[in-house]
């Protein structure tokens, strides 16, 4: 296991070293006054909505309208792909329930996939439909984060949070697109296909025919990893060698998962003039990530009960990695798959480089809990930080009660309105998850999706609604698409995206107009270790306790049975 631990430590060091300068750059992108020539032209083209300083309601309206319009466009493309161009393998229209769920899934930065990409989606749908959403949904998330940060940092006067269209442009042109181009080139060099030619038929050494799916894969995989999207070109996602051919590609892809989410904490700290506070948030997120890896890696290396009892050799040695290799790839082994499973659910990425359904009970509980905590550690691109702010406010409030003062955060008084928004923002999604999972587990229509028997089947169901509601997109992939599951999932996807987003924007708008209260000796400091532990405790006690009863029915009972 030493080799694996070494790889994970190097990963963590590179992540910290790169997220810091990127965060500084991102703060610069959203705070510079003057836009470039193309930006000014683009905004003029968009008309008056792009020319105003928007308050939180106008900003939110632009995001919602944009997302809904794009939903209609994308749904149309998926349904009509059979009649459109760039369809060399002549794939027919996507069935309407799957198209609806997929549309919701991609416009909300989730990328839950009730379909097999290489056998369902034309090249047009993949690159001009789904991959475009991977840019704009991530860009919209970052834009909202910038707006919330501006609201928090505003020192008296004015309700404006910036302009959505300008922030969207800058997210994509200055952050997402350049990184995607660089990553795509490296991934293609490792073996990720990038072609407009259709599938190729090979005659194998034994004389059989083998159909090899390819397409414009590299350009999609880079943004899929960078924008906390996760929706791959192939059904088995980044476990497929064509999406993730080598250890080098794997390292870069798993790095891309956490890069922008951690960088955005640095960016946030700079934009709200509270760098030490942001480092505390960074440390809390990092701690949750580290705990996850420390549970998942040994659990997977230890192997599952079935494998231990079978008698086959699962011992780690120089000639094999051993452990629970079910649905895992040789070139990644246990360490890199456990690392990926943890990282992809700490943020709302959801790509996988091995099958989560086949994870051991403890190894599978880590991604499940990670997602259930919400987009907080550090969550999706953009959406993560405003998700975390809900918990920060609750922590500040609890601390305020303890010391008997009105809670303050970053120089602003936190009052009833902000607390209501934070509580609702933090609790609405987990509540919805539990209700949906309960409905899906007691109805015949819901049970039809379950693949594995017993407690594991319950975990599959819980995982499905946790993943979609928290806009993650990873899956216990045995959970099948039915009219019931796709429809319920569609509701979860939209609600899980917009409810926290609007609550976050409302908090930003509310704080924007507040007067600054100078810090005094009695102010509870939010930039030290005490607050960090407080925040960890609040996250564990709210979302953590909400999922505990459900865990006892799923992974815990499954772990105890064997």
């Amino acid at each position, binding site marked *: 296991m030493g080799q694996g631990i070494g790889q994970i430590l190097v990963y963590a060091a590179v992540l910290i070293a790169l997220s810091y300068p990127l965060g500084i750059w991102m703060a610069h992108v959203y705070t510079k006054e003057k836009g470039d020539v193309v930006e000014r032209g683009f905004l003029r083209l968009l008309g008056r909505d792009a020319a105003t300083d928007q308050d939180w309601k106008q900003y939110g309206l632009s995001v919602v309208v944009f997302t809904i319009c794009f939903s209609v466009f994308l749904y149309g493309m998926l349904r009509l792909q059979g009649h459109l161009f760039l369809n060399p393998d002549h794939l027919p229209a996507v069935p309407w329930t799957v198209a609806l769920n997929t549309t919701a899934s991609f416009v909300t930065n989730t990328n839950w996939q009730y379909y097999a990409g290489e056998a369902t989606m034309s090249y047009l749908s993949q690159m001009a439909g789904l991959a475009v959403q991977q840019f704009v949904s991530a860009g919209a998330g970052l834009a909202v984060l910038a707006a919330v940060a501006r609201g928090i940092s505003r020192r008296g006067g004015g309700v404006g949070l910036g302009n959505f269209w300008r922030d969207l442009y800058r997210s994509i042109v200055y952050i997402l697109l350049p990184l995607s181009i660089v990553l795509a080139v490296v991934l293609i060099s490792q073996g990720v296909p990038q072609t407009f030619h259709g599938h190729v038929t090979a005659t194998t050494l034994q004389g059989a025919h*083998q159909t090899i799916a390819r397409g414009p894969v590299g*350009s999609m995989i880079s943004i899929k990893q960078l924008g906390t999207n996760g929706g791959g070109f192939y059904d088995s996602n980044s476990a497929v*060698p064509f999406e993730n051919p080598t250890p080098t590609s794997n390292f870069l892809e798993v790095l891309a998962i956490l890069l922008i989410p951690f960088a955005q904490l640095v960016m946030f700290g700079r934009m709200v003039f509270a760098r030490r506070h942001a480092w505390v948030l960074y440390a809390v997120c990092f701690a949750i990530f580290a705990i996850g890896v420390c549970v998942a890696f040994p659990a997977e290396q230890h192997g599952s009960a079935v494998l231990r009892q079978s008698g086959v*050799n699962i011992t780690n040695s120089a000639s094999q990695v051993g452990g629970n*290799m079910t649905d895992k790839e040789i070139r990644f082994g246990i360490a890199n798959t456990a690392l990926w499973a943890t990282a992809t659910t700490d943020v709302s990425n959801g790509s996988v480089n091995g099958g989560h359904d*086949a994870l051991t009970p403890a190894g599978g509980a880590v991604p499940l809990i990670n997602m259930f905590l919400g987009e907080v550690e550090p969550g999706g691109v953009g959406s993560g930080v405003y998700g975390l702010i809900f918990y920060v406010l609750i922590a500040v409030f609890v601390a305020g009660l303890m010391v008997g003062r009105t809670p303050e955060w970053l120089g602003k008084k936190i009052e009833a309105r902000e607390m209501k928004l934070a509580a609702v923002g933090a609790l609405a999604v987990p509540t919805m998850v539990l209700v949906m999972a309960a409905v899906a587990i007691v109805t015949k229509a819901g049970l039809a999706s379950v693949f594995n028997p017993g407690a594991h089947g319950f975990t599959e169901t819980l995982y499905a609604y946790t993943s979609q509601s928290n806009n993650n997109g990873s899956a216990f992939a045995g959970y099948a698409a039915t009219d019931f599951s796709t429809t319920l999932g569609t509701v979860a996807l939209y609600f899980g995206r917009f409810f926290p987003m609007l609550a976050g924007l409302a908090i930003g708008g509310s704080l924007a107009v507040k007067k600054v209260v100078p810090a005094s000796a009695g102010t509870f400091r939010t930039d030290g270790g005490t607050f960090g532990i407080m925040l960890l405790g609040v996250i564990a006690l709210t979302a953590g306790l909400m999922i505990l009863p459900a865990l006892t029915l799923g992974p815990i009972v499954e772990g105890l049975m064997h």
Partner: protein
Amino acid sequence: MLRALLASVVAIVVSTVVLGFAYPALMTGVAQLTMSHQANGSLVMRGGKVVGSSLAAQSFSFPGYFHERPSATSPAYNPGFTTFSNLGPTNPALAQLVKQNAAAILKLEGPYNPGLTIHQIPVDAVVPSGSGIDPQISIAYANLQAKRVAAVRHLPLATVQQLIKQHTQQRTFAFFGEPGVNVLELNLAVDQQVSG
């Protein structure tokens, strides 16, 4: 509302043109010009014909070939429709599958490896891979199959072991990932060795 609607329509058109067409077209152009082998799927040719991809497993059942890991795709090793097995860690179906696969390996390799027991079968040989087309097997599984391939092909065992070594893909920078043996490339090398 109307203003936001108008802006949305323009933004959809612009982003689809730039991100949906220009960006992938640019990437495709660069890729096809500078690294067309990788960009076209790392296809493996023999005698002018495509025999597979070095990034995809294919079905090997002849005793003179090294065999791949199990695959959950339909049919097995289908790079046109990849899938996980999704078999949970306590699923009786997984126990059954492992038992069957192990029995098949004991039957196949036993005659060439006297005294072979289930405890010597590496785990990757009996459980499905993530993609269903994992092009690699562990070094342990390759070594287990070496005696059979050598015997069936009438090659010295040392030669076959040497081929395994040559086609073992080590950790990147001797550090990242895990080592594995590319089965298609190894079998091509075995074929070449035999035909001389």
